[in-house]
C-alpha cells in the first residue's frame, strides 16, 4: 500500500505561473472555501483585472508580499482528493518555494521533506538558470520524482513541437544530475486548467498523466520499509520515577528513521556498538508486533545498557558507519561565508556535536553542474563539498541511501542561526 500522504515542492522562476498553478490545483480539487473565494474575487476586482478570478491570489501570504508582489518564504498548503474504492485519494502537503530571494535556502528547505518536485517552466522561455538550480537541488536532496510542468502552453498554440524541444533540452541537462532521477514531462496551462486536474482537449496529442493523476499515484520513500535497514535515533528516555507506571520501566523513544523493527530483532547501540535485542515496542500503552518508519515509538531492550539521547539503535547485521570525519555537500544560507577552520554546532539525527571545517573540497557551478575544486569559501546560496571533523562520533548512512541518517544542519553558535544544511557522502 502507498502512504496516503504526499509531500511535494513547487518552484519556478518569477512569473512562471507557480501561484496560478497551485491556485488551480486547489480550485479544481474543490479545496477552496466560499469565504476564501469571495476574498479572491474581491481582491481580483480591486487590482483591476479583467473580471476573471485570479487564482494566484489564493496563495497570497503576508502583507509585505501583497504590497511588493513577491513571496518571501516557504509557504505550506494543504489539499486532498477523496478516497476511492481502489485505494486512490490522498492528502497533499505543498511546500511552495519562492524563487528569487534566498532561493537556495528556500528550495533546499522545501525539498528536504519532499517526495516529489514540480519544476515549472514557461514554454516560451525554456530551461532557465532558476529551473536548473531547482532540478539540481531536487536531485541533490534525493527527491525521487521530478515532474517538469511546461506551463503556458496556451500561449504557443499548444504546440507539440515546442513541448518536444523543451523535453529534449531538459533531458540533456537531467542526464548530468545525481542519481539520474526519473523525470515526467507534462504540458499544462495553469491559467486555463489544461492537464492540471482536467485532461486537456486541445492537447490530445499528450497521452501521459495529468499532474493530479501523477500526484495521486507516485510511491513515496516510506513505501518500501523492508528494503532499508532499521535506524532509531534515541530522542528521549522514558523512565517514570513516580506513581505513574512501574518504576523499572525504561524505554528508548524516538521516530523510526528508516526500515522496520520487531520484538526479538538483534540491534546494536551506536556509536559504542554494544549488541542487544528489542524486547518490546510500545506506542502509548500498547505493544505492537512491528513498527515501520516513520512511526514514533518507544523501544524496550533485553539488556540494561547506558543509552541516552543522541545514541542510535540500528539493526545489527546492517549497521551504519561511525566516524568523526565526514565529507558532505553543504548548502550555505547566510551572508557570512563558510571558510576552512570555522567552528559550528552540528545537529545530526538527535545528536548535537561541535564541528570544525577541515577543508573545502569543491563548489558546484549550478549552470554547468561542474564542480570547481578547492574554493576559498562557500558564499550565500553556494553548494559545495566540505570535509568536517566533529567533537563526537556520528553514526550515519550516506545521504543517497538514507535521507534521515545522512543529513545535518549547521548552527552558528554566535547567532544561534541555522546557517547551512549538509548531506553526508562518506
Amino acid at each position, binding site marked *: 500500500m502507498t*502512504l496516503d*500522504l504526499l509531500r511535494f515542492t513547487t518552484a519556478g522562476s518569477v512569473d512562471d505561473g507557480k501561484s496560478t498553478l497551485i491556485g488551480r490545483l486547489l480550485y479544481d480539487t474543490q479545496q477552496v*472555501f*466560499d*469565504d*476564501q473565494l469571495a476574498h479572491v474575487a474581491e481582491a481580483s476586482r480591486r487590482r483591476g483585472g479583467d473580471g476573471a478570478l485570479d487564482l494566484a491570489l489564493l496563495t*497570497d*501570504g*503576508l*502583507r509585505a508580499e501583497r504590497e511588493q508582489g513577491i513571496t*518571501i*518564504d516557504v*509557504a*505550506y*498548503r*494543504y489539499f486532498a482528493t477523496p478516497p476511492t474504492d481502489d485505494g486512490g485519494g*490522498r492528502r497533499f*502537503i505543498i511546500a511552495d518555494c519562492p524563487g528569487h530571494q534566498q532561493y537556495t*535556502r528556500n528550495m*533546499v*528547505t522545501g525539498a528536504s*521533506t519532499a517526495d516529489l518536485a514540480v519544476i515549472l517552466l514557461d514554454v516560451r522561455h525554456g530551461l532557465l538558470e532558476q529551473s536548473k538550480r531547482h532540478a539540481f537541488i531536487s536531485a541533490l536532496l534525493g527527491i525521487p520524482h521530478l515532474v517538469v510542468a511546461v506551463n503556458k502552453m496556451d500561449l504557443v498554440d499548444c504546440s507539440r513541437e515546442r513541448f518536444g524541444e523543451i523535453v529534449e533540452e531538459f533531458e540533456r541537462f537531467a542526464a548530468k544530475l545525481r542519481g539520474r532521477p526519473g523525470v515526467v514531462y507534462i504540458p499544462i496551462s495553469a491559467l486555463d486548467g489544461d492537464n492540471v486536474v482536467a485532461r486537456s482537449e486541445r492537447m490530445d496529442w499528450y497521452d501521459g498523466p495529468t499532474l493530479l493523476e501523477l500526484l495521486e499515484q507516485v510511491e513515496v520513500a*516510506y513505501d518500501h520499509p523492508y528494503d532499508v535497514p532499521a535506524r532509531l535515533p534515541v*530522542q*528521549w528516555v*522514558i*523512565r*517514570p*520515577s*513516580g506513581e*505513574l*507506571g512501574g518504576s523499572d520501566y525504561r524505554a528508548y*523513544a524516538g*521516530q523510526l528513521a528508516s526500515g522496520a523493527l520487531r520484538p526479538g530483532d538483534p540491534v546494536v547501540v551506536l556509536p559504542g556498538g554494544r549488541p542487544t535485542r528489542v524486547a518490546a515496542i*510500545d506506542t*502509548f*500503552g*500498547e*505493544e*505492537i*508486533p*512491528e*513498527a*515501520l518508519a*516513520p*512511526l*514514533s515509538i518507544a523501544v524496550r531492550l533485553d539488556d540494561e545498557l547506558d543509552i541516552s*539521547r543522541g545514541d542510535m539503535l540500528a539493526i545489527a547485521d546492517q549497521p551504519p558507519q561511525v566516524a568523526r570525519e565526514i565529507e558532505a555537500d553543504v548548502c550555505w*544560507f547566510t551572508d557570512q561565508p563558510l571558510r576552512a577552520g570555522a567552528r559550528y*554546532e552540528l*545537529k*545530526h539525527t538527535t545528536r548535537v556535536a561541535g564541528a570544525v571545517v577541515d577543508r573545502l573540497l569543491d563548489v558546484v557551478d549550478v549552470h554547468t553542474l561542474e564542480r570547481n575544486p578547492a574554493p576559498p569559501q562557500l558564499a550565500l546560496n553556494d553548494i559545495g563539498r566540505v570535509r568536517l571533523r566533529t567533537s563526537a562520533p556520528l553514526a550515519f548512512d550516506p545521504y543517497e541511501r538514507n*535521507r*534521515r541518517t545522512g*543529513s545535518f*544542519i549547521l*548552527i552558528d553558535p554566535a547567532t*544561534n*542561526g*541555522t546557517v547551512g544544511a549538509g548531506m553526508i557522502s562518506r
Partner: protein
Amino acid sequence: MSVTAGPQLTHLQALESEAIHVMREVAAELERPVLLFSGGKDSIVLLRLAEKAFRPAPFPFPLMHVDTGHNFPEVIEFRDRRVGELGERLLVASVQESIDTGRVVEESGPRASRNRLQTVTLLDAIAAHGFDAAFGGARRDEERARAKERVMSFRDDFGQWDPKSQRPELWNLYNGRIRRGEHVRVFPLSNWTELDVWEYIAQERLEVPSIYYAHEREVFERDGMLYAWRDGAQLIDGERVFAETVRYRTVGDMSCTGGVRSRATTLEEVVAEIAATTITERGETRADDRVSEAAMEDRKKAGYF
C-alpha cells in the same frame, strides 16, 4: 498490555508520529517548556500526543491556560476535569488580573473583546515562569499568516515574530537554540488540517467540550455571525436574542467566537459536517480575523498564540 495488529501507516499515523517527534525534541532540547491548553479541540489533541510521547512517565512540562474571563463555562469545566484525569499540573494566567493590575486596559462598547489583551497576559506569564518554549495547537491551514510559520518558531525577547527572518527548517532537524529572554513557540499540529484533527479525535475517542456538539442556546446575530448571549453582553440597535440550535467549530472567547447552525450531535456527524463544509473555520466563527486583511499577521507579530 494488549497486542494489536501490525501497523499500516495512514496519514494520521504519519502526522501523529511527526508531532510526537516534535514534542520529544522540545522536551529534550529546551529547559522549561509549557503546553498551552485552552480546552479547544486542537489543544485536546496536543494532550493526547503528549501522552503518546511521554507515558507512562508524567509530562516533562506543565499546562497553562490563558483565561480571558469570558470563556464558555462548559469549556472551563472540561478543562479542569481533563487536567484532573491526566494528573498533570495546570497554571492559569488571567486576563482579568492583567486588567486589575493595569497591564492592559479593557476595551469598551458593544464590540469589546479581550482577544488582543490575551497577548500581554501570555507574554507576562511566559516571562514570569521563565518558560523558553510554549506548545500551541495552531495549524498552517487555519490562516495565511500561519501558512508561513515554522513548526518551531522563534520569538525575540519582546515575544515578537519576524516572518522575514525565520530559521530554515530542514528534514526533521529543529534548531531550538535561544538566548535568555527569548523563547520558541512550537506547533506540533502545523501540518494537520481541521478535518485531520476531527478524524483523530474520532479515532482516539477523545472527549471534547459539549459546545462542539449541536445544542440549543440563546444567541444574537451580528455581522452574519451567531454570538452566545451572556451576562454583560451589549446589543446594538435592532439586534435581539433568540434560541437557536448551534455548535462551535472553534473555542475562543465568548465575545468573539460565533456558533454555526448545526444538527451534529455525535463525533461522526461532526466529522461528516466538517468534511462537507464550504467555509473555513476562522472565516465562519472568528470575529477577531475579520478586522482587517492582515489581522492575524499583526497579532502574531505582537506575540499572539
